[in-house]
């Protein structure tokens, strides 16, 4: 991970976004897929929209606000660009960008620029709305990686070990017993991992 991305992740964790995926779109802009989409999404809960209007729009320049309102009225997709300022007024060197579609039309050229402070309560709302989503993403990531990586390899190893135990048993009873115990140990590990993965799936 680059130093810049590490810095961004550190700030994200400070904001309470431990698991939100980000990618660097340019030297200045970090894309947050889906993070701000709910703000202007027509299907988002009304209270999201309300706090967006109350919490964010006062920080927006009049020209940008007019552009956003026109886009929303016309159901034109909006690109949101959020730049941060720290509490002491310094502009931080990264921004957030997301594409959001309040309607069915294809992405237009409307861009909403928001300059807001870290302490703005808007982040608390974003945090509350998206933390559970972040946890869900993280659970899915762990489950998928368990399946694609660990569990698949462990499955192969369990069969390999059983095979080996069978072969060794033909050479020596003692060694066969040890190999069989080892295969049994691996069997138990497989069953434990299976129950771990499966119990996570049952939560969904």
């Amino acid at each position: 991970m680059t130093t810049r991305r590490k810095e961004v992740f550190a700030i994200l964790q400070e904001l309470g976004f431990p698991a939100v995926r980000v990618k660097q779109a340019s030297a200045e802009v970090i894309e947050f897929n889906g993070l701000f989409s709910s703000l202007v999404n027509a299907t988002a809960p009304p209270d999201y929209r309300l706090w967006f209007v109350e919490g964010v729009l006062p920080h927006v320049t009049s020209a940008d606000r007019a552009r956003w309102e026109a886009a929303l009225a016309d159901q034109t997709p909006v690109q949101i660009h959020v730049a941060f300022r720290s509490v002491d007024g310094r502009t931080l060197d990264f921004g957030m960008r997301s594409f959001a579609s309040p309607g069915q039309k294809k992405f237009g050229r409307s861009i909403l620029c928001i300059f807001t402070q870290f302490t703005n309560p808007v982040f608390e709302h974003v945090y509350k709305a998206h933390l559970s989503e972040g946890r869900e993403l993280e659970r899915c990531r762990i489950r998928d990686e368990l399946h694609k990586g660990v569990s698949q390899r462990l499955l192969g190893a369990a069969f390999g070990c059983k095979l080996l135990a069978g072969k060794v048993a033909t050479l020596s009873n003692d060694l066969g017993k040890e190999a069989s115990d080892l295969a049994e140990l691996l069997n138990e590990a497989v069953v434990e991992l299976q129950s771990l993965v499966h119990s996570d799936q049952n939560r969904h």
Partner: protein
Amino acid sequence: MRSLHVFLVENHEDTVRYMKLFLEQLSYKVRTAADMATALREIPKWDCDVLISDIGLPDGDGWELMERLGKQRPQFAIAMSGYGTCNDQRRSRDAGYDHHLVKPFAPDALLLLLQEAGKQKEKQS
């Protein structure tokens, strides 16, 4: 009575290798495919008793494989998947699989099912 013919569809190289060797050690006749297209081509050519197929395949899935095999599907079929929700298990049953094994599973669990397949075949013959 001849040993069971098992067709194994799995794209994870190590898993398929050791499963095949292990089953062969127990006198099962085993053929393998790493994707759905190969399985669809090879299964009808062989007098296959049991199909063991991963659900996630590079060119499709185990459910589609069963559907496309149609009447050429083996008598006994076992699905393997990393996903074991009720919905996954129901989909496997609906597709025609007799059992749905959730990965990772113990080799003994597979052996029990193969014994069941053997008994079923014995009854039918």
